[in-house]
């Protein structure tokens, strides 16, 4: 599938609208998952997804190398997400009641498939993690999510933020130190297992 992406991107930049539609379909889930982790609720995640693609469309001429489409996309998404986070500061995002969301069949976006009892446990875990992440300033929060959850490398994150890798390193270190403190109980109960 990934082999076709550069070709799609090339056509998209040249103005092929079908190619753009295909790219939206291919990347929207990944983008939604990232945005959801950053903002912690469906409405904001949805806004990030839509706005990111609209901006990608408008800025497509700035995309010099088709192989960097994913970086281009995530960079725009993270910048917009940071703006939203700053805007939301003060009235922190509501942890939504996940049972009220449409589509009770979940987890298709997750890294692994959970059993029903794990799902229940996971809801609490998710809330705890979301709350812990919310205590971090935007850059640290995003660095932790991008690196430790989404699996991006430090070099890639430096690309997204257009900053030196050393900055990514220190942000990640501070974020982890804080998270370890906040989630201490979870971590020690895990170590006893």
């Amino acid at each position, binding site marked *: 599938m990934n082999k076709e992406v550069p070709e799609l991107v090339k056509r998209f930049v040249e103005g092929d609208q079908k190619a753009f539609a295909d790219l*939206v379909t291919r990347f929207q889930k990944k983008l939604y998952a990232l945005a959801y982790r950053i903002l912690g609720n469906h409405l904001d995640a949805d806004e990030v997804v839509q706005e990111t693609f609209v901006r990608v469309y408008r800025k497509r001429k700035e995309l010099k190398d088709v192989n960097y489409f994913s970086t281009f996309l995530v960079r725009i998404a993270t910048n917009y997400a940071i703006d939203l986070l700053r805007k939301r500061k003060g009235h922190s995002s509501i942890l939504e009641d996940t049972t009220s969301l449409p*589509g009770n069949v979940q987890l298709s976006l997750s890294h692994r498939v959970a059993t029903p009892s794990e799902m229940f446990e996971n809801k609490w875990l998710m809330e705890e993690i979301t709350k812990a992440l919310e205590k971090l300033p935007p850059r640290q929060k995003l660095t932790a999510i991008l690196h*430790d959850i989404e699996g991006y490398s430090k070099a890639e994150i430096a690309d997204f933020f257009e900053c030196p890798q050393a900055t990514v390193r220190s942000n990640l270190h501070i974020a982890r130190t804080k998270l370890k403190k906040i989630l201490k109980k979870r971590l020690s109960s895990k170590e006893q297992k």
Partner: protein
Amino acid sequence: MTCQTALSLLDDFVDGELSQALAEEVSVHLEGCPRCRLEADETKSLKELLRQSEVRDPGRDYWPETSQLILARTVQSASAQEPHHTTADQLADQRNAFVRALLSLAASLVILVSAVVVGQSQKSTATLSSPDNPVLLTSSLAQRLDPDFQIVTHEERTRLAKGMLLMGPPGPFGRIAGLMELINLASPGFTEP
């Protein structure tokens, strides 16, 4: 290896990003140092914990609906203008030029006065359905400082165009732009080149 050195290398050690030689040195230190070992174990557990967090799928219908919305905001609006009209980008540029012109106006103190005047003139002519607060007008102008911000609603564009027509500087980026925008809003496509 000192604890200080070991601790400074721990993140990269846990992330598997050290050279083999250096990683071995750290391993040796950890074997003999419970304090640093605990630190490393906690970082490992934190990463594992974060990886377990899952994102709830917003439902099967969400994806096609969202891509439709995105396409409506980009591709389809561009193709609707064809053949003798403009691309979405040109439209966006045109709007942005309009917004920039408006912002240069906003830079002066005049804007405070004009906001009140526009607010009042809108109330007295009662052409707009919602009672517009002059303060809201200025704050929405502040939002326009973001060059990526698009004027979305018809009502917003009308409001800005009226302000431009009434208070804008003379010339193509001033009152004329306001007038063109108003005409355009009244009969879409009329002023598009």
